[in-house]
């Protein structure tokens, strides 16, 4: 009951936003626009799925470095493709690289028992800074147009990467979370880490795996971004940590871990991208989105808190 209610909250917010945009800009519900909402949502969706798992697994889990990983692995993929490395191999290399960056977070957090918050704050600056410093802030552009197929084409008005990456990742991860022992373990670790250790669950290994997964999903987002823009931008991942974190919390996952899921996160992502596309249609500066998202982040936690208090009474 609790979970469904919180998840309904973001759905309601999304519908309200859609209503406002539909009233102000009738073209909002055009087929082309729905395609572009999905087009914009892929990056955030992939990153948010990873972030959801990180937060679900508890222990103060948070990954602030995801944006930097998106930019860095995007740059590596772009660089490899410029060197005439086959696209498939470049993509796999990028994914592995993202996995390594993510596992670096995971290793420091689990081996040295440090707070994820401070560790990923450090890697947030290191990764983002590295992406800018290595390229002097200039994008790697001029990727071959054949590479653009992945990021630019659509099947029946649905972008190819949505069908190829977002939907399968969502389905597989939801299946794992809800139907397999591993999924149960992840929720259990988030609820009571100490009990899980005593029972003998490999808590550290699971968390390491989740941070690695978060890195790989970020790298996948980097691949999609490269293919879509036909260039690798060093700042493509900017603000994704704030957006993904907000999407996770708004989608009903508890900041303390152990409760929530991917569906709410996905709806929140669609809500954000509708907001982004809608604001663009109304010619409102995108910086507003950042401000609104910041307010939503604070608001969603406040709301979560008051719902709990109301239920306790």
């Amino acid at each position, binding site marked *: 009951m609790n979970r469904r209610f919180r998840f309904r909250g973001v759905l309601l917010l999304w519908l309200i936003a859609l209503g406002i945009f539909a009233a102000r800009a009738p073209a909002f519900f055009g087929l082309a626009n729905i395609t572009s909402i999905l087009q914009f949502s892929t990056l955030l969706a992939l990153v948010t799925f990873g972030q959801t798992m990180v937060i679900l697994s508890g222990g103060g889990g948070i990954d602030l470095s995801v944006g930097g990983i998106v930019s860095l692995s995007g740059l590596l993929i772009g660089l490899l493709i410029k060197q005439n490395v086959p696209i498939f191999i470049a993509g796999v290399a990028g994914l592995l690289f993202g996995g390594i960056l993510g596992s670096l977070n995971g290793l420091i957090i689990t081996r040295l028992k440090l707070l994820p*918050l*401070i560790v990923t704050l450090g890697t*947030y600056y290191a990764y983002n800074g590295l992406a800018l410093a290595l390229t002097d802030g200039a994008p790697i552009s001029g990727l071959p147009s054949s590479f653009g197929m992945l990021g630019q084409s659509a099947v029946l008005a649905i972008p190819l990467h949505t069908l190829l990456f977002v939907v399968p990742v969502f389905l597989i991860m939801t299946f794992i979370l809800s139907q397999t022992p591993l999924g149960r373990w992840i929720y259990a670790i988030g609820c009571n880490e100490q009990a899980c250790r005593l029972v003998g669950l490999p808590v550290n290994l699971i968390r390491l795996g989740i941070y690695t997964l978060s890195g790989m999903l970020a790298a996948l987002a980097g691949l999609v971004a490269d293919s879509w823009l036909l260039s690798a931008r060093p700042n493509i991942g900017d603000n994704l940590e704030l957006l993904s974190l907000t999407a996770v*919390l708004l989608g009903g996952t508890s900041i303390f871990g152990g409760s929530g899921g991917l569906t709410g996160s996905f709806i929140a992502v669609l809500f954000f991208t509708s907001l982004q596309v809608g604001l663009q249609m109304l010619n409102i500066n995108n910086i507003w989105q950042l401000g609104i998202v910041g307010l939503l982040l604070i608001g969603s936690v406040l709301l979560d808190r008051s719902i709990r208090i109301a239920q306790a009474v």
Partner: protein
Amino acid sequence: MNWNKWLLGRREVTLALACVVLAILFRSLSPYFLTVQNLTTILRNSVELLLVSLGMSFILATAGIDIAVGGALGICAIFVGWSVRGAWPSGAVFLIGPLVGTALGLLSAALIVWGRIPPIIATLGLFGVYRAAIFLLLGGSWISGLPDTLGPLVNLSFGMVPIVGIYVLFFYFVGWLVIRWLPLGTAILATGGNERAARLSGVATGKTKFFVYGLTGLLVGFAALLYVARYRNVETSTGGLVALDAIVACVLGGGSVLGGKANLLGTVLGVFLVRLLQNGFVLVGVPSLWEQVITGALLILVLILDALVAVPASTTLN
């Protein structure tokens, strides 16, 4: 007496040694590094960060964190810039920065204490809000070419001691009094050490947090005043990396995000080390874009070293 063991175990000694070693290293790479002029530059560049880091030390001591200080500094700087451009009375120009800063600090505290939002979430949200607010307030353009009315605030000196040094000494002295000698200091460390136990033994943890975030806001506002006095312009990126630099300086100095620790002298040395590194790398010819990477990597490095070697150096209650 095992005074040498005591000396070597001190955080401050390690940091001071690190500063000296780095200075020698940079001296060998760039003859310009160890000149009076460059050292003065490093000290002057440290002033704003010293103020913000003092507040951050207090926040970390309560097991909190504030990553929105950079945005708050930007907003305060905009208000100071407006007041200078509008030729407000000098008292108002002087007070507007600290006032706005304190208000923003109390806002963070209200969200954290009354809203019971984890500090990282509250300040990350505010970070987004402040970034948007800065763009909105500035309207996409810079405040630049301000008259030099605030000049004396940063350029005066008493003999050898520049006035900015006196500000820093004053605030750190007050901070030291609070943390070392006043009941409030005990309350701060107790809140960070074990909040529940502190509350149960009668510590007003909520009020303590309001004090800590409010004080940081005040210091951030004052830092913004000094920033505008020195550079006479405000950009959208003003205050950008201050939060990272301050957290790194505090963690270097022996603070911990887990709370319950504060080491003000360590924080001062941490600030010097951060600024020394940043200055040294620029002189050696590393592009300034690397600054962020170096600072981030430094944070990770210190965390790892700290975790490997537990250093008992800071003021704690036990």
